[in-house]
């Protein structure tokens, strides 16, 4: 399978484009790094890929077919701030199992404890919430994971923990990952290949 975006252009104003003619492709099981300066449109590109943003020009497809707007999206996006990605009025177990019932082995590898299930999101730290967000996104139906600065807000140990687990899981499920970060060292450690947004974006 191959997630492809072709000739993507996006801008809030007509004469002020953030993305111009961006082309990118991500294969199953591939771990691709995307590096860009702050304000270069990385997050916008992520949102377009995962179907959060629809007002763009160009084409996003999987194996040449458009991604259906209804039903489970095979392209899942995980954000920088996990606090915003959870409903504060939901208990953790509901948040975790919103998409699918997360199997025990994934919970174990993420180190998610049963005792956290009945807690509210504000009782967990960012690193812990991010594990829930990732476990929720990595269902068997997920084919591509867009990781937008997912470990920018956590400490080095949690970062290493999270990435080691995610890389294991995506290998097993043959998921393609787009690692978006501004940290070159992290990307070079994780990814098979690196793309610089400045090189593919001709704004």
């Amino acid at each position, binding site marked *: 399978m191959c997630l492809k975006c072709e000739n993507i252009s996006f801008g809030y104003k007509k004469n002020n484009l953030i993305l111009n003619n961006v082309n990118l492709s991500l294969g199953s099981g591939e771990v691709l790094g995307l590096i860009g300066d702050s304000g270069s449109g990385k997050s916008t590109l992520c949102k377009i890929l995962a179907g959060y943003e629809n007002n763009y020009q160009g084409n996003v497809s999987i194996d040449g077919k458009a991604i259906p707007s209804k039903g489970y999206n095979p392209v899942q996006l995980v954000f920088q701030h996990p606090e915003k990605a959870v409903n504060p009025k939901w208990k953790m177990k509901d948040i975790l199992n919103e998409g699918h019932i997360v199997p025990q082995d994934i919970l174990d590898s993420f180190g998610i404890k049963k005792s956290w299930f009945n807690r509210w999101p504000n009782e967990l730290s960012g690193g812990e919430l991010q594990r829930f967000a990732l476990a929720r996104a990595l269902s068997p139906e997920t084919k591509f994971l867009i990781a937008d600065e997912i470990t920018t807000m956590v*400490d080095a*140990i949690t970062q*290493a923990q999270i990435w080691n687990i995610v890389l294991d899981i995506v290998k097993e499920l043959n998921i393609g990952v787009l690692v978006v970060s501004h940290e070159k060292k992290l990307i070079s*450690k994780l990814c098979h290949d690196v793309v610089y947004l400045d090189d593919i974006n001709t704004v």
Partner: protein
Amino acid sequence: MGYMENMGNMGNMENMENMGNMENKTKTTAKEKKKTEALLKVENISLSFIQYASGLRQTELKVISNLSIEAHSGEILAVVGSSGSGKSLLAHAILGILPSNAKLDGKMEYNGQQLTPEKKEEIRGKEIALVPQSTNYLDPLMRISNQVIGCVEEKNEGLMKKVQRDIFQKYDLKPDVDRMFPHELSGGMTRRVLVSTAVMSSAKLIIADEPTPGLDEKTLNETLSYFKDMANRGCAVILITHDIEAALKISDKIAVFYAGTVLEVANVEDFKNNGENLRHPYTRALWNALPQNKFQAIKGHQPMQDEVIDGCIFYERCSKKNELCSKGIPQLKSVNGGVVRCNNVS
């Protein structure tokens, strides 16, 4: 070195400080004019929140315990720790801007004077300034120059405008920035505006709360250089961050925060190779987890705030734990020019 170790065995904070100065003297004579007393001294503070548990019962939630740090003029102290370890709350405690259900115990001294809540309010913004993390701290409906200047008497306004212009010039903020609103600024510009607000206040102690996340390398280095600048001008800077790499670039000392307490205060030089000069197993794990090092994770989690731990707070995850560690909190010891809270270091 032997002398130092003897001193270290006496193991309390005051000795630590003397020793720190001594070391500095031998290292650089140029820094000798530096004050011997710390500008800010935080001794054994603990912070808890009173919260409602289920129904009408109120419980106390301890978020910081037995914490001691010192900030010296002309130095940058980095406070490094994971999210939820209570770093930001430390900043809020020093500034006296905690919510009303917080309970703070312990001693804080600023410039040799006791820091009472009244005193905090008096010197907040004047002698102690905060560089906040996010752009949300700017008033979205106020022009930039007015925010930076703040409230001044009318007759001083012209003078303040000039000072503000000079500072902006220094940080490469063009004259038209003065008239802009916060939403018109880019991330890097906002950062510079926030920094110039602190400079403007002519504060002696600057507390920067997570000033770097999400910045690309160029902007990051630029931001860090502003703090280095302030320290060179004689300010004491406390840099609160989870990004150990950024901290290493500019700091003099690094305090490693974990679950509401400081496990180690290390010198920047200690962070090298495989971290064998680091004193605490947690600091070493943190160092080895960096992508450019081993990218190696240790198992487990930082304990939750409502979990009570009798022994060392790092006990569950420690590779070197022994029976002693599960009983009682280890004492602070000074070792090799740093402080550490661990039983297995000598």
